[in-house]
């Protein structure tokens, strides 16, 4: 059965950027874009695209990607298209900025209602910037559909979906009726690379752009105005950085000296 799928993807600061490049502007409580490190699609969201593509590979279907923000970089947000997704819808407007999980989930859910027909919605388990992991569950709650979070495997079987959900000591196999929302975790495995053909096809595709009025929401319900939580302070934890490097002529000697050092410090 071909599946109609929607994947929510967020453009974020590259989480693989060197930790030393991470800087905060304390006056505005915001993170500064590190120079020379372009933003990326949040890696968990890329894996959500991968989960949808695996289903499309096995039984066909259509994948619509939904991204919310402002001044979104086309090269970044088009990446899911170059991986094999079919359509891209951008919720792009300055009033979408500065949102929290509440206002973001609300806007995405309203956009999904406008898209209308769907069997499955995929999200990453959490965005690689705020790491809250609420938007997926929030969309499902607003739409009134079941949700399964932290999935490492998703298979469609007989009009249902079977999911392996990661738990502390292993995983649970959970079945859910459609339509449903699934959030995807990194244990799903690496997302596929874009192919040259995919990149060329993506370059030709124009995203559909929706403003708040297109999805029937008031500016007071979305972005910063629609928040239900307030950020009081953003700061970087202080690292002490007092590491004693064991010096020796060879790594093997250093290894042996390390053992003696740990013994002297009563750590072993």
């Amino acid at each position, binding site marked *: 059965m071909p599946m109609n799928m929607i994947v929510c993807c967020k453009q974020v600061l590259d989480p693989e950027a060197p930790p030393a490049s991470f800087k905060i502007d304390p006056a505005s409580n915001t993170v500064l874009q590190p120079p020379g490190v372009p933003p990326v699609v949040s890696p968990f969201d890329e894996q959500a695209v991968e989960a949808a593509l695996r289903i499309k590979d096995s039984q066909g279907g259509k994948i619509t990607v939904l991204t919310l923000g402002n001044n979104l970089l086309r090269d970044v947000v088009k990446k899911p298209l170059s991986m094999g997704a079919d359509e891209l819808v951008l919720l792009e407007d300055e009033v979408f900025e500065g949102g929290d999980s509440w206002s973001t989930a609300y806007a995405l859910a309203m956009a999904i209602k406008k898209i209308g027909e769907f069997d499955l919605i995929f999200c990453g388990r959490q965005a690689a910037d705020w790491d809250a992991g609420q938007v997926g569950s929030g969309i499902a709650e607003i739409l009134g559909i079941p949700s399964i979070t932290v999935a490492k495997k998703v298979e469609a079987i007989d009009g249902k979906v079977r999911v392996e959900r990661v738990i502390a000591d292993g995983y649970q196999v959970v079945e859910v009726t459609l339509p449903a929302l699934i959030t995807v975790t990194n244990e799903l495995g690496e997302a596929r690379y874009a192919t040259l053909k995919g990149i060329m096809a993506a370059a030709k595709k124009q995203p559909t752009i929706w403003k708040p009025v297109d999805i029937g929401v008031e500016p007071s319900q979305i972005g910063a105005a629609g928040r239900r939580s307030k950020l009081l302070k953003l700061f970087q934890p202080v690292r002490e950085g007092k590491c004693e490097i064991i010096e020796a002529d060879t*790594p093997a000697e250093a290894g042996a000296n390390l053992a003696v050092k740990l013994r002297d410090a009563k750590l072993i």
Partner: protein
Amino acid sequence: MAEFKGVMVYGETTEGKLTALTTELLGCGRRLADELKEDLLCILVGEQLGEAPQSAIVYGADKVYTVEDPLLKEYQTDSYVTVMEKAIKDISPQILLLGQTAIGRDLAPRLAFRLGVSPSMDCLELNIDPDTKLLQGTRPVYGGNARAIFVSESLPQMATVRQKAMSPLEPDESRKGEIAPIKVELDPAKIKTKVIETVKEEVEGIKLEDAEAVVAGGRGIGGPEGFKELEELAKILKGAVGASRPPCDNSWVPDTLQIGLTGKIVTPELYIAVAISGSSQHLSGCSGSKNIIAINKDAEANIFKEARFGVVGDWKQALPAFAAKVKELLAG
């Protein structure tokens, strides 16, 4: 509308016992309740709760609500959210704390959206603002690169709490409290998900979360064979083996060994990081360790900023010599 009163802990149990994190939540909840001069409530949900309700009192609760039903044998989003929605509306606590666990990270957001409130997830610290009396939650963001303090005025104020971030109270068998069973009608037709099976992927030996010594390997280990050497060292130290994300994502080791933001949180006495660069997301899972030891060939690796002792060099040469010397010292 009912007045919002009391601090409530959503407790988790395994085999009729409170989980360690639940006792930590009760310890934290007790402090918050005392500051607000209110009661500490606990809610336990499951098929059979055994001695757990009494145990919640021993660990600090004034009143324990219990919901027992065969339909609640396993956690399922639909049934548990229904139970908690009913309980929160009836009891109306002003604060609800959950653990950042497989259950908590699923239940908290969905319940919050149903109640119209905004939770702070994965908190490391919780405090009451002395002026506003509102709950302030401090949580890691940006993969552990930064921390953020959040507050929400919508009630109940909800937060999930990371393992080992809070301390439990000393158990006090003489504490008195009330146990109040509550009944919630569940309609099986409304439970859209079905748990087919639960697969345990426990590794042999000491559990990673409980080990006093952890030997963890990263991308630089290069494959599953290298982890055998780490296992040898872990055996000598009577500890457990862990990993950063790349070895798990590449299936060199089971996913359950992952330490970090999206894996396990460990706080051993000794944490030996081998060929781990020390990304913020990994450090989120191990920075609570008492002593971090790093072996890495890159002198600039971030892990050295967290480590107490370090060896700069190829682990393939340093580790066998280190393990042999440790074995010799422990034998002598």
